[in-house]
């Protein structure tokens, strides 16, 4: 049983690592190509905006700040 287990382990390691590497390399190449394609053929005309997600987060952070300031003021008044 020992010999096969070693072989199985080696197989998983070699093929697994190989596939992870090849897949992410392929993804990197496709991503680069996609970015060039999008920025060339679908350039953004409106001024660069943050994405919804980021804006959300950023906005939330700002709102939190504002509310904290308001609370601070509120507390002072008391």
């Amino acid at each position, binding site marked *: 049983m020992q010999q096969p287990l*070693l072989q199985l382990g080696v197989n998983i390691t070699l093929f697994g690592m190989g596939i992870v590497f090849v897949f992410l390399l392929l993804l990197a190449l496709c991503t680069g190509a996609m970015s060039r394609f999008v920025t060339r053929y679908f350039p953004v005309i409106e001024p660069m905006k943050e994405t919804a997600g980021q804006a959300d987060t950023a906005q939330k952070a700002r709102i939190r700040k504002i509310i904290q300031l308001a609370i601070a003021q509120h507390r002072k008044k008391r």
Partner: protein
Amino acid sequence: MQYLINLWQTSGAYQITPGQFAMLLIGLLLLYLAIHKKFEPLLLVPIGFGALLANIPGANLSMPAAQAALASGNDELLKQMAQLLGAHSESTTSLQQALTLAPAEIHTQVTQLAMGAGFNNGMLYSFYAVTIASGVAPLVIFMGVGAMTDFGPLLANPRTLLLGAAAQFGIFATVLGAVGLSIAGIMDFSIADAAAIGIIGGADGPTAIYVAGLLAPDLLGAIAVAAYSYMALVPLIQPPIMRALTTAKERKIKMVQLRPVSKREKIVFPLMLVALVALFLPGAAPLLGMFCFGNLMRECGVVARLSETAQNALINITTIFLGLAVGSKLAADKFLEPKTLGILLLGIAAFAIGTAAGVLMAKLMNLFSHNKINPLIGSAGVSAVPMAARVSNKLGLESNPHNYLLMHAMGPNVAGVIGSAVAAGVMITMVRAMTT
């Protein structure tokens, strides 16, 4: 009086085993680490508390109905179960074994018998069945993680995907290590066990739980605890390795500022990733599919309310029950084994090797490119989002107080999430092909 004796005999203080006592202490230790040391508290608080509940003697919260019936030691019932199972002995241990080996049909009958006699599935067992055995909870959490992930830094510098790939070497080296321990006769890990242990090196909680739930449910408790603990320990584990493998000059490399990334690119990216998965890696489809779905909800901008729910109510609800379910696997008889020690040791090796591989990959890439990468961001490829990226940033600032690496390190950091999901898919596919 009979009742008082009976109550005393059903009480925990009477029934507790040294193992359960030790596990209660371990549960408290996990809670201490989570609350006082802030070790990944969102998962470790529920896991730690789940460990306490799972080890309450006599409450059987983590047992299915059939096992609870066995544990009750009711003679009449054991006799009937033995008959159904075709077992010769009526000892709890041998019936337990027979039950594990019984075909699904018999198993159903034994369960119905136990339920008819008033035994129910334990609460934590139910949580485990719904969240982990079904595979759903880690996928839902991964969707939420996708909805929280910004691929902007990765899109601005897609080369960093290679760093995320390299850092997964920790996973596969650990698989070999587990196999080695087995061959040396020190431990007894199957190939499925080895793969599940390796995934600790992915530094990604839901991926680790998903793989362990499929390939090695018995080791799930130890694997999850190791994964989350080491993720919390990244600021201690990584820096010495990063310093040892880089020169002071390398650590001072300043990287060019990242270009802005358009919304369209961010929308296309998850679709492209899922297309590549569809073409080349169907085994990774559940994990990466849900991850990309979450990310698309985030970026597409037209389903803000779904994205918001995926990032908050849904992921929180799932986390609570997932954590308790993981805790249910910290029952004494499964956790207090030499295997656990092996898993803890292999896990830390996985983190260390992954860190080193990421850093070395960055150095290798610098040999072939004149747009240099600061090798300190290589270590972020293990994922452990966002802790590992912060560690890169901190070491960068130590060497050069004006060198902010955080955004640069976010690229390999999220690449590492993709990388370990890919590794998970490959391993699940291969292990299944090997074992059937």
